């Protein structure tokens, strides 16, 4: 191995990096060299080792083998604060902000500018902080209101705050781990614009993403990882999506799922005049009515935070309906418990996989049995039947390609984000429920896995299930749906067959610009 080749060209060099976890090699002899001022993308399947590789650059753990050079100088990056001193910054997929602090306070936290009161008492110089933040925001087009409190601002603003935090600390090397997974298409466009502006301002950017289109739009070069190994590094211009996908998973992938015409059956879910309030008595869902039939994929499209997850929670029983009725197969389930609804035939992939969908400190095996443990044969007269848990977990791990270090015995907390998601998807699809509620089912999944899941969702529909799909991903909505409802500010702007929309129409309804008082879908009532 040639190690000592450090030319001035490269700002970051990770040479021969190997990282092992008990039972798995997350990175195996990976060498990447990143030039100053480029956007370098990392592409790879779920569990390929992207987050692990970047975590080593950011000092969250140390490589077992290999060396890291920053600006040609060999460095042992032992902690995130040391990484920060090398001008490395990272935006994590799950933001780390203090929710009751203002934006400015969050940005300066830990690096506060101080001034001396009465000449000797050090205090935080908020005025100076605000000035500096305003300056940086202007420079890179990251508008924020420094005095707004974090809990009142939306996801994309929070992300800007995370970016500002890095810039405020003079980061030169910026790592983004799946930054677009939580954003709407418009927000993604603006983020990509920001990333470009940062590069043009001389910053070096490392971007982890599963979306090939984004790589095509902004990246200069792209490294492809597969099962911990570096497969190739390519110049992005001149590369096509199909080729990238094939390199990533190791074989050809089909980029769009094939779908036959829908055959609607009887109504499965009938929601009428549903109203949901939050704790402050604000109506998050206002008088929503719709019907989902057997054999139908019914999507709710909308900008995040417009009440779509509340609808899902209300149908699944996690939130109480203020008024209105919810019927499943004609039976009123409005006041049933979650368990009763599950037994009546509802499965649910919730939006938040880590807080809601999984118990991170349980094993994968126990998590995969989370919805079934109370049924026979998982239990018999109150005693758990471990072999059945094991069998179930083996089946799902293979069926849904859930990758982890020690199969069923892995603690879910240690699994990669995408594989955690696959665990929930597998568990819920296998529920064999007549109504499947899928919220952001493919968030954080690689394209191979997405296609696989899309095929499964369509297969479920063809088996005569009713699917309620909630997704921020417009492509996903248009590709899968038979019927689309567009939600804006808690109410449906329109319910119509998917063919009746154009992309720009969807956008208008989502922004609340267009509105035709939605009739109940499917013509019931």
């Amino acid at each position, binding site marked *: 191995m040639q190690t000592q080749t450090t030319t001035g060209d490269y700002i970051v060099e990770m040479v021969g990096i190997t990282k092992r976890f008990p039972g798995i090699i997350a990175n195996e002899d990976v060498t990447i060299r990143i030039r100053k001022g480029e956007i370098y993308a990392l592409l790879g399947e779920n569990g390929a080792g992207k*987050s692990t590789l970047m975590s080593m650059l950011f000092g*969250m753990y140390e490589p077992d083998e290999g060396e890291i050079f920053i600006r040609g100088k060999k460095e042992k990056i032992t902690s995130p604060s040391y990484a920060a001193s090398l001008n490395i910054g990272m935006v994590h997929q*799950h933001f780390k902000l203090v929710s009751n602090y203002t934006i400015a306070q969050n940005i300066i936290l830990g690096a506060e500018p101080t001034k001396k009161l009465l000449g000797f008492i050090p205090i935080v110089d908020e005025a100076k902080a605000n000035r500096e933040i305003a300056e940086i925001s202007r420079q890179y087009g990251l508008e924020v209101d420094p005095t707004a409190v974090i809990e009142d601002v939306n996801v994309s603003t929070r992300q800007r705050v995370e970016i500002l935090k890095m810039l405020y600390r003079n980061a030169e090397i910026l790592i983004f781990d799946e930054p677009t997974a939580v954003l709407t298409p418009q927000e993604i466009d603006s983020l990509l614009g920001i990333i470009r502006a940062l590069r043009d301002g001389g910053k070096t950017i490392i971007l982890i993403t599963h979306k090939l289109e984004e790589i095509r739009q902004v990246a200069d070069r792209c490294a492809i990882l597969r099962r911990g190994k570096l497969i190739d590094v390519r110049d992005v211009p001149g590369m096509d999506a199909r080729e990238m996908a094939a390199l990533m998973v190791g074989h050809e992938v089909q980029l769009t799922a094939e779908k036959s015409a829908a055959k609607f059956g009887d109504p499965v879910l009938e929601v009428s005049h549903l109203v949901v309030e939050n704790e402050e008595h604000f109506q998050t869902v206002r008088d929503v009515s719709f019907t989902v039939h057997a054999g139908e994929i019914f999507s709710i499209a909308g900008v995040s935070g417009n009440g779509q997850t509340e609808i899902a929670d209300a149908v699944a029983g996690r939130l*109480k309906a203020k008024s209105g009725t919810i019927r499943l197969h004609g039976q009123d389930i409005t006041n049933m418990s*979650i368990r009763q609804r599950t037994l009546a035939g509802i499965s649910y992939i919730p939006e938040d996989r880590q*807080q809601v969908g*999984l118990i*991170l400190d349980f094993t994968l095996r126990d998590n995969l049995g989370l*919805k079934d443990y109370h049924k026979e044969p998982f239990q018999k007269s109150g005693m758990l039947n471990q072999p059945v848990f094991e069998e179930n977990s083996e089946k799902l791990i293979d069926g849904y390609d859930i990758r982890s270090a020690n199969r069923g015995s892995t603690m879910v907390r*240690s699994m990669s984000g995408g594989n955690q998601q696959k665990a929930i998807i597998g568990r819920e699809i296998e529920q064999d429920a007549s109504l499947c509620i899928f919220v952001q089912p493919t968030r954080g999944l690689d394209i191979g896995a997405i296609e696989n899941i899309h095929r499964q969702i369509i297969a479920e529909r063809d088996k005569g299930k009713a699917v309620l799909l909630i997704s921020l991903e417009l492509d996903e909505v248009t590709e899968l749906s038979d019927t689309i409802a567009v939600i804006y500010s808690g109410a449906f702007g329109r319910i119509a067959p998917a063919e009746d929309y154009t992309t720009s129409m969807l956008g208008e309804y989502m922004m609340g610009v267009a509105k035709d008082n939605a009739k109940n879908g499917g013509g019931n009532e």
Partner: protein
Amino acid sequence: MNNGRLYRRIAVAAVLLSLLAGTVLMLILGKNPFLAYYNLLQGSGLAPKAKYAAARSMWTDLSSFIDFWTPMIFAALACAVAMKTGLFNIGISGQMLVAGFLATITIGYSGLSAYLAKPLVILIGMAAGMAVGALIGFLKYRFNINEVVSSIMLNYIAEYIISFFIQTRFVDPVSRQSKNIGAAARLTLQDVAIGGYKFSIPLAFVLAVIACVLVKIMLDRTVLGYELKAVGANRTAAGYAGIRVGRSMIVSMAISGALAGLAGVSYYLGYFASIQPKVLVSTGFDSIAVCLLGSSDPVGILFSSFLIQVIAKGSTYMSSQQGLESEIVSVITGLILLFSACSAFFMGLVVSRKNAKNNTKDLRFGDEAETAPAAVTAAVNRPAEDKGGEEA
């Protein structure tokens, strides 16, 4: 997983550290620490003393040690069951007292035959503890009252009301304690003569060992245990999975209370035969440290309670042999308890160290994440925001 092994190593380290601290203290006081520690073993009947009083021997000391050990096993199990559900039962002493008192006045003074009285004492003790525990769980579920606060308050209520009744109705004018219960109701057989020695045989010890096995099975193998642990590890996800979180918390506190009740009767109607008014026994509080040292695991608890009780029991003999003031001995026992309670903290420290090497800090703590300390910190720091929300 090597989770358990790591924890065991840390627990052993905590104990060694505490013994070391005790050694330093004794050296400062000019005592021989090795002799002193040997005295602990002698006092608990684990090593022979130089001389014995009439009808006493190492074996009689041992049986009285086991008698002393028994309530602690129950109490630590009570703590563990709650802890696994993410609850902190700090009211074990109060629950012990209620159980002991009710069993004393109903059965202890009744003159029923032994065959009837002993099972009844056990049943009444369990039921009384269970009722108090369930009440705490219910208050949490229904009114969102933090279980730590309500159990501390109930401790006081139990202590003073029961003192009132003892002092007005059941007091023994000489001892200023409640009158001794009849031998038939007592769970420890007194002065059983075997081979010229007089033993006290703690019948409840058998029950304590059985309770360990049952709790272990309950936690590891049953639907109930799965639900309780799910609630303890992530309430939101447990609710999402259809588990009735509020009900689980009540059930967990009821079981915990029942175990505390057993601790109460084996203490007040076993090791002792009367109740001292206006005192809450320290067993209930020490059991928290015992539970932590045993990593909230029934088998671990069997070991940790043994250890702590050897020290507690042997300390009287140690102080008389070494001429140490009993206060100093209490300081040493206190140190040991302190270090064992800290073992959870050490665990956290080791885990976060390992994380620095191994794990992404944002979302993972690796497979070493230990539920017990997490539960403690959660229980201690938890503001009242968590709802026992339940869907009817």
